[in-house]
Structures are given as C-alpha cells and as structure tokens.
C-alpha cells in the first residue's frame, strides 16, 4: 500500500453514468491483485475518500470502473485526463485463485472487481472460467464479451437474476465461485453453494473512512468476530460471513413496530 498522486491518462464513458478512468502509477499497477481496491481523494472540499475496485492494470497504469450514484462519484466524473488525484492503494485482501472451473458472478458495478480476476485465471491457463453478470436494466450494462448477461427487466441478455445462471453452472461442474455485488445478491450466491464444498468468495462493499483498518467503520460480522472489510476483506469466504447483521437494522425496525 502506498499513497501517491496519480495522473489520469484516460477517461471514457462506457454507459449512462458509468465511466472507466485510467491512472498512471507503476507501483500501484504492479502490486494490485484481483479484488483489491484503491481509495481516492476527490480533492478540496470532500471529507472522505471513496473506494473503488482495481478494474484492470496494464503496464504502468491501473483503471477503475465506476458508476455515478451520489455527490462523490459525481465529483469524480468531473476530472479529466492530465489532472491528478491522490490515491491510496492497493488495499485489502483480494481473491485467491482456486478451482479448475471457476464462476465469476457480478451484480451491477460489482463486476469491476472481477475483471482482473478473470484475466489472472486466463493467464494461469484456467480457460474454463465462466462470467455471469446481472444488471437491473440495460441502461447500466457494461460490455464483457465472455460474460453471460441477465437483467431484471429482460432488456439485455436473459431476464432474471444471476443466481439462476449460477445454479446452471453449479450443475455443470463449477468448482469455485467468486462474487461481488449488492449484499442481497451475495447472500443468495452464498446460499447457492452452501454445504456444497465449493469454495465461495464474496467481495463486500461497505462505507469506508480510513480504508486501512484504523477507524472501525467498515465492520462486518463473521463467525470469528467482527472483521474490517477494508483490511481483513473486502473478500471473505462465504461461510464466514454472518449476513443477518446487515439486515438487522431494518428487521429490528419492523419488530419494534409490531410490538
């Protein structure tokens, strides 16, 4: 992990509100492993950095794929090539490469953390790797030729959610699962392999402040206690995560109402 001013060398819009931004930094590029992330300072006026998965690396550059969802990502989208941003990275623990027939499951922008993983599998001659991507609709879909795509509204690829496609892959012999996306989806992915002895790695996205394990804001409940998503994660073994805690908030709200 290092902190460095990184120049933006390219920025392209790949879909509505979705951008790829390429930064130049040899050390961050060479050290980044699939599933790791960078923590980006958005410049004067912002209090917290914003975390983004390392989407890809190429020679001295690394890139992120991001969607404009709020003020921070909106701000990020205003930066242009030749400008520089202060980046900390790579951070966290990425995905271990396991299995002969791995399946990569991305929901929405979660796909950003899987691109480099896919590349590494291909590099290590695991050609039998499958990619399943799910989007809410066509609007936010990002192209990935090898991927099986499904959308909730059927506007692109199959109509449905990723676990449908995942179950088919599991039937036809998939032996490792990697997923990143909304927590509701991750939970379903975890359920799909539960008890099946298929190593399943889930990448969590939680609000972060420090990104290095110092502030305890990004915690997640696991079977071995509270873990910091930024430091011990963002990738966890599916079996370890206790998902209830996340839903706890809404559940207890409901409960109180009922009593």
């Amino acid at each position, binding site marked *: *992990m*290092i*902190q460095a001013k990184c120049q933006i060398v390219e920025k392209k819009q790949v879909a509505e509100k979705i951008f790829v931004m390429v930064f130049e930094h040899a050390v961050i590029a060479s050290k980044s492993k699939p599933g790791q992330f960078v923590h980006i*300072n958005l410049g004067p006026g*912002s*209090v*917290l*950095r914003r975390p983004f998965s390392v989407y890809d690396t190429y020679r001295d550059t690394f890139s992120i794929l991001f969607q404009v969802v709020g003020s921070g990502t909106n701000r990020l989208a205003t930066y242009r090539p030749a400008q520089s941003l*202060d980046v*900390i990275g790579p951070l966290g623990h990425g995905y271990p490469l396991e299995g002969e027939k791995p399946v990569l499951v991305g929901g929405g922008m979660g796909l950003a953390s899987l691109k480099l993983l896919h590349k590494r599998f291909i590099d290590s001659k695991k050609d039998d790797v499958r990619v399943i991507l799910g989007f809410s609709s066509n609007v936010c879909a990002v192209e990935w030729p090898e991927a099986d795509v499904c959308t909730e509204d059927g506007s692109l690829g199959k109509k449905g959610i990723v676990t449908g496609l995942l179950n088919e892959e599991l039937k036809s012999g998939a032996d490792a699962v990697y997923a990143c996306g909304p927590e509701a989806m991750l939970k379903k992915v975890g359920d799909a392999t539960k008890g099946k002895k298929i190593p399943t790695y889930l990448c969590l996205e*939680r*609000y*972060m*402040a*420090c*990104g*290095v*394990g*110092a*502030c*305890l*804001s*990004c*915690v*997640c409940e696991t079977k071995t206690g*509270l873990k910091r998503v930024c*430091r011990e994660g963002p990738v966890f073994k599916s079996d370890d995560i206790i998902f209830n*805690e*996340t839903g*706890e*908030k809404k559940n207890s*709200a409901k409960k109180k109402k009922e009593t």
Partner: protein
Amino acid sequence: MDISIDLAGIKLNNPVIAAAGTFGNSDEYGQLVNISLLGAVTTKGLSIEPWKGNPYPRMVETVGGLINSVGLQNKGVKDFIADDLPLLRALDAKVIVNIVGKTIEEYAQVASVLDNEVGVDAVEVNISCPNIKKGGSSFGTDPKIAAQVVAAVKKKTKKVVIAKLTPNVTDVSEVAKQVELAGADAISLINTVKAMSVDADTRQSKLATLYGGLSGPAVKPIALRMVHEVSQTVKVPIIGMGGISNTKDALEFIIAGAQAVAVGTATFNNPQTMINIINDIKDYLKDNDLTLKKLSGSLKSN
C-alpha cells in the same frame, strides 16, 4: 528548529498528536506514515473487557464533516497489552492510551492495569462514554461526575492523566475547572458533537444508531472557541482538536491557547496531514520569529 514540547512532564518531539479512534491501535497507518515522526499517538478507547461497539453502518459523511457511531469497539485492555503495545513501544512517538468505562470503577480498572506497562506515556480519560448508572447520559456532561472519574483514575496510576472533554455542554470551562481540581495533568478537547443524519428515502437514521458524533472541519470553529474558553480557565496544558486539517488550523488552536494539537478526521482524507503540519509549523515559526512557547495562547484582543 526545536518544536518539542513538555506536556505535563512528557517530552513530545513536536506538538502534533494522532487523535483517539482515528489512527488505529498500532501500525494501521504504518505503511503510509512514518509514525515515529509524530509527537504522540493516541490509541482507540480501551475498556477493561472487550466491547463490541455499534452495528453497521457506523459512519456517514456530512458537509465538511462526518458522523460516526463506532461505539468504542475494542478488544479490551489485556489483548491490547499483548497484541498492540509491543509495536507502540518501538515507536519514537509518545503513546497516549484513551480509556473508557461504563462505570467509574471500570475507568479506574483500566488505568490500574495500564499503570505497570512500560511504553504507555499517558492515559486519556474519555468521559464521553454513556454513564450506565445515570441512564446513559455521558459522564462528561456533569462537571462533578467528570471530576469523580478523573480522581478515580488518578488514584490508580502514576502516569500522566489527560481528561478529554465533550463539547456537548453548556459550560465547558466549568467541566475543565472541575477535572483540573480533580487532578487532571492535562486537558484535551473536543470529542465529537452529538449529531444526526436522516435518510429521506427510508426515513431512518443513516447510522444504525439514532445519533452519532460529528467531527471534521465543520466543528472546527466550535472546538476553537471551547479551547479558548478552557485556556482562560485552567493552568494545565491543553491538547486542542476538532477539525484540524492543515497547518493554519493547527496554528489557530495554538494561538487560541492549546499547547499541542491532535488530528483525527483529516487523516482519513490525507494520512500526511500530521506530517505536513509538523513541517510547516517550523516554517511559520521561523518566518514569524516565534517559538512555540511564545505562540501558545498569544491571541491578541481586538
């Protein structure tokens, strides 16, 4: 240029301190910051037994600030001594251990356990914890109870005792006066300001808890005023904090009456903040032909 200070008997190489709860417990920032260059580091609130803290989400950004509801999650004093203290001992920076409790006795117990430990230079008594005996309002909002906590800790330790004040009071200098009388060797302020953020879509608090604590540049003008008020009241040294993000901010606190400053939230934005302040303070003192001693509390009346 010498910018070392004497903080109630502890010699700090410079007046810049990492604030409790924002710099981890040992080397979390070690790969990004040369921690040994800091004046001191303060560790995360430490209780006698492990605390679990509050559920996620624990953090929300606001304009110029952030609200946290970490809730003093920590591994308890025993594990801290075993896991973290060895790393801290190896640093050049001084080590301040922030301590917490739900009863006065718990505070005293943590202080007592730490009293034998080499490498702990001071304990900072975080009296912003909910006082479970008093229905959860914080110890620090009642000057008398605040003083009792400090006195109880003082009894159990030969270490320097710093009392950390909460800003959520009508009269912070009254609290300061009472903890000084109770034996506090130094005073630090401010802790976070009680605050709230609501999600208009879900109509729930954006945190898992109802309220949290506001920190960052947004609270700086409030913190600065309180540091000035307290500096007019007490004789013990003051560690000023609350929104310090750059050298100008740090200078404002020192001019207003602080002997040292602590940086919290700004480190999340830029881990180099403290290092930059240390370097730039030197330039400022040179340019203005001043020493830290002369600068501290040198606010001119209007």
